[in-house]
């Protein structure tokens, strides 16, 4: 039997089988909600921010293996980053951190990037209002 799912890297498989940071967050500082059912991927990303630093990130994802793995990876990557640094995380960076994605799955990493931006923007909007 050949290496199954071998378009997926070991890292993708790890994050698919044991995704990090799964779940909802109570009173998050920012929520990102992206994707659409037509394309079969929906991501919700929650962040907690303290002193401009993302201290916690969680996600819920309806999507394929790559969608789950990128969600898991992006929530790992943002933790401990400043909001500005987090905004610089690109979909390529997420894909690279996962050891690459098959071409047909790159859209999942785009979604992860969008989910993160959406959550950060939500946080920034909220904090503006509080100002």
């Amino acid at each position, binding site marked *: 039997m050949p290496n*199954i799912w071998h378009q997926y890297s070991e890292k993708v498989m790890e994050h698919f089988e044991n995704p990090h940071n799964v779940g909802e967050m109570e009173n998050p500082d920012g929520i990102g909600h992206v994707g659409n*059912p*037509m394309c*079969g991927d*929906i991501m919700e990303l929650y962040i907690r921010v303290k002193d401009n630093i993302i201290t916690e990130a969680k996600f819920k994802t309806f999507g*394929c293996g790559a969608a*789950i793995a990128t969600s898991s990876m992006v929530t790992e990557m943002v933790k401990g980053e400043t909001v500005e640094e987090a905004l610089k995380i690109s979909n390529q960076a997420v894909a690279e951190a996962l050891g690459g994605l*098959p071409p*047909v799955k790159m859209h999942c990493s785009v979604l992860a990037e969008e989910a993160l931006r959406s959550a950060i923007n939500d946080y920034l909007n909220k904090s503006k209002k509080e100002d």
Partner: protein
Amino acid sequence: MRKYARKMKRIYLDYAATTPAHPEVVKAMQSYYSNAFGNSSSIHSYGQETREAIEIARKKVAALINARSEEIIFTSGGTEADNLALKGIAYTSKDRGNHIITSSIEHHAVMETCDFLKEQGFRITCVPVDKYGLINPEDVKKAITDKTILISIMHANNEVGTIQPIAEIGKLAREADILFHTDAVQTVGHIPVDVNEIRADLLSTSAHKLYGPKGVGALYVRKGTKITSLLHGGEQENRRRAGTHNTPAIVGFGKAAELAQKELQHESKHLTSLRNKLINGLQKQVEHIYLNGHPTKRLPNNANIRVDFVEGEAMLLSLDLEGIAISTGSACSSSNLKPSHILTAIGLQPDQAHSSLRLSLGRETTEEDIGRVLEVLPQIIARLRAMSPLTKSSMQEKTNA
């Protein structure tokens, strides 16, 4: 998890995609590669012996659908048979009319061919289906115009397994003096198919769906029906399909047809019972699981289920890691990311279509296999539902419990 997957018994539940060639089929083909390898068009004895083998196979394939030998055109598969049927009739009949009636749940081989013909100036009417995937013959009748040259409605659907009332459609086509084609790739060899009973003028079949080899299929063309070739060249197949005969595959198809005819009755009973066990077992264990397709007018081996709140490919991947092979209506790897046109045609929302799995059973499926799926799949669903933003909170509590 993955580490163990390599050692465990693999369970194949994707027989609707393709079947393994039966050992007797493989055996029958053996001598036609390097021994009786002659070109059937050659006059000498090497050609003679393959010519004979091909004609014996043709008889067997014809017998399976109650046709005559000379009504069988061997092709390279179901796709070619569908293309030949539609384009062949379209080109032959274009002086009589330019209108073709088909359905919204045809296989890509029919659907895309219709799209091509549309570009060539033909007019296509797609009749809809109900929530079970059933076509109403009345809709077909209403779609007929004086320009209609062909009605092409599949026998049973490859995804949701719904069996269409094609005998009625064949009857009304005959009454209106319009040619009737049916894509029977999913039915021939699995349920009884009789070209005279259903009044088909053209019928497509493919060997690899009935434990025959890949790379060979057939188009039945009723005697007297003129058809323009799709592959032009030599004089093979009564000048209707050129190309050196794929003798081993044709011989294998013949053997598969012979075996199918014998085993059909028993097998369809056996698979229906296993299939029902699977569906009932899943519905008993897991909430928000729904059967796609018709509950009784369906292929014996087909279980297509909608598992709300979870994406199909994630389930497929999780099952594959457990050594279980199935298919999904999701298309997270296809070029356009759109879910199956068949599932949307029966009224599913995009997320529901993306949440659908097809488990198709076959000759080697055992009670134990079904037991294993009933053990593994609910766990996978629970795990993925816990991650899904679509899972209702009430739902989630139950699943986590």
